[in-house]
């Protein structure tokens, strides 16, 4: 079971949340009863009372529903926590133009850690302007590694960008630092 802050397991945190009583706005019950009485008065002859009573006489389901909501919210809060070092806050995106001069290329695409290295056809396809291939795309703020994929098989680093030294797989790549334009 994964652990989060303070060594508590997620399950323990969920259990603790579920143990908290569900507190509703104090006016909630009053407003509900006003509506129920109004409905009761208006629809008495049509037998709609059963609808209102079905809600009020099933506290088990209401508790289960409330518990589910609490669990979902709790999970959302847990999952949204930064899981590592101080978050860079790099939630902004900025348009980046990638350009490669390759007059003899038949196709050029851009793959990098901002598009999962082109897995599942996510590569950015560049367009050819007389041998100057380019594509502009929004890239998340932060530091990235990328490469041009020429003719679908040849990896080429961007000659105008800093080199990336992490060539563990023998393929050249480049580094890109995108500033958060929202800051």
């Amino acid at each position, binding site marked *: 079971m*994964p*652990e989060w802050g303070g060594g508590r397991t*997620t*399950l323990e945190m*969920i*259990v603790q949340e*579920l143990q908290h009583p569900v507190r509703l706005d104090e006016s909630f019950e009053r407003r509900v009863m006003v509506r129920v009485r109004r409905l009761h008065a208006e629809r008495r002859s049509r037998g709609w009372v059963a609808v209102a009573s079905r809600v009020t006489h099933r506290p*088990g389901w209401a*508790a*289960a529903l409330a*518990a*589910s909501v609490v*669990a*979902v919210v709790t*999970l959302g809060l*847990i*999952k949204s926590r930064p*899981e*590592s*070092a*101080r*978050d*860079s*806050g*790099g939630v902004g995106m900025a348009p980046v133009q990638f350009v490669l001069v390759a007059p003899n290329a038949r196709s050029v695409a851009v*793959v990098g*850690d901002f598009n*999962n*290295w*082109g*897995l*599942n056809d996510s590569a950015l396809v560049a367009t050819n302007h007389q041998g100057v291939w380019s594509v502009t795309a929004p890239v998340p703020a*932060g*530091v990235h*590694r990328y490469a041009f994929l020429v003719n679908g098989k040849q*990896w080429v680093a961007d000659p*105008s960008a*800093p*080199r*990336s*030294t*992490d060539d*563990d*797989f*023998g*393929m050249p790549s480049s*580094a890109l*630092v995108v*500033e958060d334009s929202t800051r």
Partner: protein
Amino acid sequence: MNRSARGLAAMILAAAAIVPAHAQDPRIENRLDAPSRIAISALLDSARAQGIPVEPLMQKMYEGLAVGADGPRIVSAVRNLKVEMATVHRALGTVATADEIKAAASAVHAGVPAVELGKIKKQSGLRRSLTLPFTVLADIVSRGVPVEAGVNAIRSLVGAGAKDADINDFQRNVSGDIEKGAPPAAAAETRAKAVPAGKPESTKPEQDDH
């Protein structure tokens, strides 16, 4: 279904929802052999427990898959990156951002001692992001600038309050000089002196003018 059974069902559903996403990632399924998947999952869990950013490790795995590397090679690359990030995480401290750790790991990969990166971080203070300076340091060292000369150049730029745009220019100029035949160390030292000084960053707390 009684109340306790419903509660149990809700708990099971909740627990199922927190299964690590990478364990079910369709980008991994059928692309990586089972032992490698398990090894990488363990590395990710370990990194998470140490407070190391996990996303760069995931991306290293995707990169390996994209180039068609086999499982053991991908595991080795992910493990090496995790070790490098753990090293820089210790050197930079908890104030470092995930991007700084990622960029610093590249510099370590290029041969820069993590302790030198820690000194630059200490010198720069909290507000100045070192993501680009570390990225440029990795670049110029990989182009032949000796580690000491590269560290000195970046330290002087950061200490002088150079902006990211200035550091980008520095990188372009140094790489251009080297391509034209300049000795890498001389190129770095000379170009670092040419960068206009900005407002130096300080590790001291700001004085209140009021």
